[in-house]
């Protein structure tokens, strides 16, 4: 369970998160929508402790992320994250990309790590690219590799930050299919996305962020069918 309690966060004078309260249950798929700059990415990077917070707290399985005593490197094994920008390690082949953290962080043997990497890469449909360098992959393939790399750490939670936003339109589908597959397998997920159709299909709940505030959160039928927040209505009207 991820519990976010009254989290505030500023970059200099700019308050980016203005008291966020949110709980994500095990097995839940939450999608987060909202305009650019509304604090969605910042929230995700706070959840895995990449960014500090100013006040409030975030608990992952009861462990306070920003407590001084928390071993962040250990906590992050539970939380996979895939970013909007492709970030394959360019000096490693696809299979090495997926093996690296398994060996370094989980101390798996090379053989174990490779077997797991092959399994995860097969899962996301990259079996034929194992020994290729990332520069030879399309954007969609790079994103699927990044998903496999995160999954190989056996995380309990997956955070996705607009993973299709930097892709050519014809490549968006294959990545969304991978996310759908994960959702159907019961992975606990927070997906920041601009794909409204996808959000409608896979989400248990959808949250709308507006200027650092979570303005509305509801199951998709309700949020898309009968939006209450005026900014959300505007946002939905604009994206249709």
């Amino acid at each position, binding site marked *: 369970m991820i519990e976010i309690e009254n989290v505030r966060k500023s970059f200099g004078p700019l308050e980016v998160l203005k008291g966020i309260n949110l709980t994500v249950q095990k097995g839940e798929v939450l999608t987060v929508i909202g305009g650019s700059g509304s604090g969605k990415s910042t929230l995700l990077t706070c959840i895995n402790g990449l960014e500090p917070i100013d006040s409030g707290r975030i608990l992952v399985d009861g462990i306070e992320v920003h407590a001084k005593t928390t071993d962040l490197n250990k906590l*992050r094994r539970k939380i996979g994250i895939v970013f909007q920008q492709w970030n394959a*390690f*360019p*000096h490693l082949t696809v299979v090495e990309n997926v093996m*690296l953290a398994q060996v370094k962080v989980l101390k798996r043997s090379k053989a174990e790590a490779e077997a797991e990497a092959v399994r995860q890469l097969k899962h996301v449909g990259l079996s034929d690219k194992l020994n290729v*360098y990332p520069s*030879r992959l399309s954007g969609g393939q790079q994103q699927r590799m990044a998903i496999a790399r995160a999954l190989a750490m056996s995380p309990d939670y997956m955070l996705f930050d607009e993973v299709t936003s930097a892709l050519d339109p014809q490549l968006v589908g294959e990545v969304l299919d991978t996310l759908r597959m994960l959702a159907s397998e019961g992975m606990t997920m927070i997906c920041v996305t601009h794909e409204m159709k996808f959000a409608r299909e896979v989400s248990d709940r959808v949250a709308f962020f507006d200027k650092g505030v979570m303005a509305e959160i509801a199951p998709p039928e309700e949020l898309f069918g009968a939006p209450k927040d005026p900014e959300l209505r505007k946002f939905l009207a604009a994206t249709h």
Partner: protein
Amino acid sequence: MFDTALTANDLIFLAKGAGMTLIVTGISVLLGTILGILFGVFRYQVGPWWAAPLTFVLDIFRSIPLLIQLVLANAFVTTVLGFRISGFTVACGVLSLYTSAYCAEIVRGGIESVPTTLRRAARSLGMTWGQDMRSIVLPLATRVALPSWIGLALGVMKDSALVFIVQVVELLKSTQILITRLQEPLFLLMICGLFYFVISFPVARLGGYLERRWSND
């Protein structure tokens, strides 16, 4: 091809000079690179404000001509501090610091060339700062920094000629000694240049070889 008074012994004398050039350069590049990596990582890690004192000192090493540094350091260590250390030690010390000042810049540039998004991805996978530095930053920064580092190493080899000022007889000084004796400057300088080339060429080629090996295609 033409008459020369150069004997085999003279050639051995030159080769010894070349050996000295190689040793002084090797020690200085090795120590300078290790120090340069420490300084460069430190500067990157603490940011420009906290690194300012170090940056200032390194800038001094980069802006004062090496010849002056050698003379002053030698005078300071032997006369002021009264240490009885050889010109060779002074030469290696000064040249190492001189190398480290340039190397620190190269290292910092190399680290900065690694996209923060990659480093965040590594940390997100639970990798520690050290694991990120070793497995991601080091290999990627090395690829970017290598050409400049090769240039630095070759430059230090040529600059090492200046250590004659602290009584170290390296290749160029050996050549001058022979020129004074044999009065065949052009021929001797040609041989001297040949020696420099033989030492430098493998280093220059090493760069090309590594770049090709790393080009991931």
